[in-house]
């Protein structure tokens, strides 16, 4: 078995060397294992928390959950802006994804034309990895379910249900509420410039922010705060599980309640018909705006979707300017509706209201003749008569007498020449001219003085003077209120917290006596059978009467007075028609202004009947007024004469007889 050639010494030497080296190898291996253990201690015991966090950030993703946008309601809780479900199709780019193929696959499921396909491919390729790009929205239920069935095999494709803004009244509140539209790069840039990091919601595909009106002004309040959905994802980013326990709920946007009344607003739009103009109606005790309509309007829902180029051009190019808010942003010469203000200024300046001015249909001053609207003239006029008849000559002369500064001061006290903080942007101040303005506005020193020839025009609300419809309504409110320098209020409450009322303001700087005189003139306009708008101002609500003042503002110089209202004149050259009114005359509750652009008729003809209709709705909705209308007839005094006459209070009118229980106008959706 063994051979004798083995030398023990040799064997022992080899064995000894091996044993020593084997110990060494064992030692080295042991050291290696110890080093690994040390590393394990470092990773698993010392830095465990750090790696635990990293593992969690691998494991969990938070998906942004957009909050529902706050509702916008009218004063009675009618919904003016809400949200509707929106089925959307989203594609997010994943690693080694064939974008063209994906879009081609989608095109077999939903309608995607060639132009859209190109744009989509570009958008998806440009978007950051895993950032979803909206391919379609407002899909039908069929499309939505078709996509959902196929989604698992289409990498990066998801269909979800979002929400999108909807305005149930379409255009009725478009100028006040505005609309929401998609976030664009400029919005994000603007947020960055303002030094705030943009709300992560802005990056959410299809997210929309307020672009106009209330939607813009209260965007942050309406928007709410984003929530997050905790989901477990695998290394490919696919959602493996939802973890509802880790969700952060979204904070819904705050509910905004406006002072507007949907019924009144809708009636205003109805009566305006095709006309271009504005109607503003104010509660003249609180300053709440119950109606602020501008016509023609536009469907805000179209803007939410995104207007096509031709659609936008059609809106922007239409001569009646539907995109312009004529109640706030359009400024006009007030015409004769300015006369009550001039009268008040005259009283302030010490003019005796009984001083009479003789109107012969024209007045020669400087080197020209100032015509009265009534070719034959009004004859001898007191202030009351001059307001009632809207006698131009009276106000030419009075304005010249008192000068521009006191008119301007009075006008400002009544609300002209200023913007009101009603909570939405886009008001124009208009212009109340006076001597100081001339100095500021003109460079040429020769033009910096107030020329006497400017005063007569000022007296009838023409010349440099411009106002907007809201200011007219505020002026009327202040006049009707008689005590407070009311401010208008549009936002009733935000998130249930009331905004300050418009009546927490100082008193008007005018004596009651003066205000009564002016109001008396306006009452006469509408209620004296010889008044300028008598027939058009009968409410037919029994003893609830309306006071008013007509106005016609010329938009150009005329060769002949006759041509101004002619049907042959092009629309854009016709006069503007205005009417201001308040009611009831005994305890004024509502004040309003109506403005018809290029109505081409007298203020009484175009504007007053519309004012009457809107005012009726407002009055009939007011429980106090209704109670007054509907209360049983007062038991007549046991007076033979009155018994014989038959108790029929209220003026004898040729309008409709006062109904016992007038029907409330139905709101139109």
């Amino acid at each position, binding site marked *: 078995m063994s051979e004798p050639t083995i030398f023990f010494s040799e064997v022992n030497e080899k064995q000894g060397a091996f044993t020593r080296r084997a110990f060494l190898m064992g030692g080295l291996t042991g050291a290696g*294992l110890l080093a690994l253990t040390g590393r394990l201690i470092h990773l698993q015991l010392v830095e465990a928390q750090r790696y635990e966090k990293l*593992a969690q950030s*691998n494991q969990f993703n938070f998906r942004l959950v957009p909050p529902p946008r706050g509702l916008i309601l009218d004063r009675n809780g009618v919904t003016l802006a809400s949200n509707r479900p929106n089925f959307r199709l989203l594609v997010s780019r994943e690693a080694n994804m064939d974008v063209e193929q994906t879009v081609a696959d989608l095109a077999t499921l939903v309608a995607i034309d060639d132009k859209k396909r190109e744009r989509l491919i570009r958008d998806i390729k440009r978007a950051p990895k895993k950032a979803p790009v909206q391919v379609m929205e407002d899909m039908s239920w069929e499309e939505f379910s078709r996509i959902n069935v196929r989604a698992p095999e289409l990498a990066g494709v998801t269909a979800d249900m979002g929400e999108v803004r909807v305005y149930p009244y379409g255009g009725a509140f478009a100028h006040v509420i505005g609309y929401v539209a998609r976030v664009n790069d400029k919005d994000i840039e603007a947020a960055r410039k303002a030094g705030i990091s943009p709300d992560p919601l802005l990056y959410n595909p299809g997210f929309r922010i307020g672009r106009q009106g209330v939607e813009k002004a209260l965007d942050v309040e309406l928007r709410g705060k984003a929530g997050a959905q905790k989901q477990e994802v695998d290394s490919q980013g696919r959602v493996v599980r939802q973890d509802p326990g880790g969700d952060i709920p979204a904070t819904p946007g705050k509910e905004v309640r406006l002072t507007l009344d949907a019924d009144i607003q809708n009636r205003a739009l109805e009566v305006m018909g095709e006309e271009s103009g504005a109607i503003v109606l104010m509660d003249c005790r609180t300053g709440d705006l119950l109606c602020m309509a501008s016509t023609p309007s536009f469907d805000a829902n179209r803007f939410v979707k995104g207007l096509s180029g031709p659609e936008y051009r059609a809106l922007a190019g239409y001569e009646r300017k539907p995109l312009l808010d004529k109640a706030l942003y359009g400024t006009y010469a007030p015409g004769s509706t300015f006369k009550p203000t001039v009268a008040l200024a005259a009283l302030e300046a010490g003019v005796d209201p009984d001083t009479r001015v003789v109107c012969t249909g024209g007045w020669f001053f400087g080197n020209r003749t100032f015509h009265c609207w009534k070719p034959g003239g009004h004859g001898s006029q007191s202030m009351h008569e001059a307001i009632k008849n809207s006698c131009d000559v009276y106000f030419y002369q009075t304005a010249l007498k008192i000068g521009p500064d006191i008119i301007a001061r009075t006008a400002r006290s009544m609300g002209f020449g200023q913007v009101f903080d009603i909570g939405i942007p886009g008001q124009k101040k208009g212009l109340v001219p006076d001597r100081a303005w001339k100095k500021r506005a003109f460079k040429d020193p020769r033009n910096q003085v107030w020329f006497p020839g400017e005063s007569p025009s000022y007296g009838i609300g023409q010349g440099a003077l411009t106002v907007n419809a809201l200011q007219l309504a505020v002026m009327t409110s202040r006049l009707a209120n008689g005590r407070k320098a009311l401010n208008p209020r549009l936002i009733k409450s935000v998130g249930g917290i009331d905004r300050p009322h418009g009546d927490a303001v100082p008193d008007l700087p005018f004596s009651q006596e003066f205000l009564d005189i002016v109001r008396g003139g306006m009452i006469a306009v509408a209620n004296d059978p010889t008044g300028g708008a008598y027939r058009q101002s009968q409410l037919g609500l029994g003893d609830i009467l309306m006071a008013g003042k007509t106005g016609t503002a010329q938009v150009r110089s005329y060769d002949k007075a006759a041509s101004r209202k002619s049907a042959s004149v092009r629309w854009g050259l016709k006069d503007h028609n205005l009417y201001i009114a308040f009611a009831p005359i005994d305890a004024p509750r509502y004040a309003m202004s109506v403005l018809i652009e290029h109505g081409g008729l007298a203020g009484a003809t175009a504007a007053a009947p519309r004012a009457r209709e809107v005012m009726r709705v407002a009055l009939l909705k007011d429980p106090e007024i209704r109670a007054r209308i509907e209360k049983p007839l007062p038991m007549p005094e046991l007076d033979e004469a009155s018994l014989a006459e038959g108790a029929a209070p209220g003026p004898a009118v040729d309008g409709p007889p006062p109904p016992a229980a007038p029907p409330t106008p139905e709101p139109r959706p």
Partner: protein
Amino acid sequence: MTLSGGLTRPGERDRLIVKFTEIDWTFCLILCLIAGAGGMMMFSAAESSWMPWAAPHFIRFGVFFVMMIVLAMVDLRVWFAAAYPIYAVALLLLVGVELVGDAAKGAQRWLELGPVRFQPSEVMKVGIVLALARFYHGLSADNARMSWWLLAPLLLIGAPTLLVAHQPDLGTAILIAATGLAIMMLAGLSWRLIGAGVVLGVGAAIPFVMFVLHDYQRQRILTFLDPESDPKGTGYHILQSKIALGAGGLLGKGYGLGSQSQLDFLPEKHTDFMFATLAEEFGFAGCFSILFLYGAIIFMALRTASVSHSHFGRLSAAGVTATFALYVLINGAMVMGLAPVVGVPMPLLSYGGTVMLTVMIGFGLVQSVRVHRYSEVTSGRGALM
């Protein structure tokens, strides 16, 4: 000849039943524990499913375990006689791979012989151990320390190393070379030569990395030096593995609850990074236990080597142990972010038949050395014969 108990009768030790009892059954139990832990983790990584990994793993281990016992019965002299032929066949197969090998993942590693598909480089891992043990068995201690004879083992190591590296399979090449060098060292290589070798090796490594390595290999090494530089690319594996380990903490997340492995953040979770999968679910406690078991295997095998009466037995058992220890240390270091990512699995714990086969053949050899520790292996006629 020995003088112990009833085994003194001539021929008694050659009886099969006696050989069977001589096997180190504790050693075998530990092997089963490690393989069992691996199978259990595969079950977890496959979301509590026997397929596709756990069942094949257990079946393979069972087959290979039986094979290991059978190999343990094989007389050491048979191993001795077969040493050079096995090495020669392995070398031929490597050349064959070079010529007609099947390319998988850009590397030529596989050879198909009829229905069998295998990697000759794995055969070489056993072959190199046997050949070197066979060579040193006949070499005098002086010659093993320092002599021109030592060019022969360098050649024996160099040829397969270069062939495997050319496939390219850097991990296996390093393993073969390191195993061979370890055996040279165990055989009593002079410290001066070891020192010179280290200096030469480091000097050669830099140009080797810069010019010889493939791009992806170089990238792996550069990434290892700065893993955070490219967390989504090459550094991803290292980072995710470290996260899995660290997130395991002291006691782990619990069986089947490792997010890194269950959600596929961990690459190669059932093969090269199986240790990280285990670490995530069983924490430091689990990792330490497994490392302890590996340590036990290595020390028991080394003890087996040291009690052998033949130099061939000593060196072959120690050589196998060196291979195994290198597997464990390299994979451990890689998983823990201490070494670049090279394709070296954790033996028995990781999924993969070839490596398991190699390791179990190796342990069959180790057990054969133990069973036949008293048998005389002739020194033969000269070192190379």
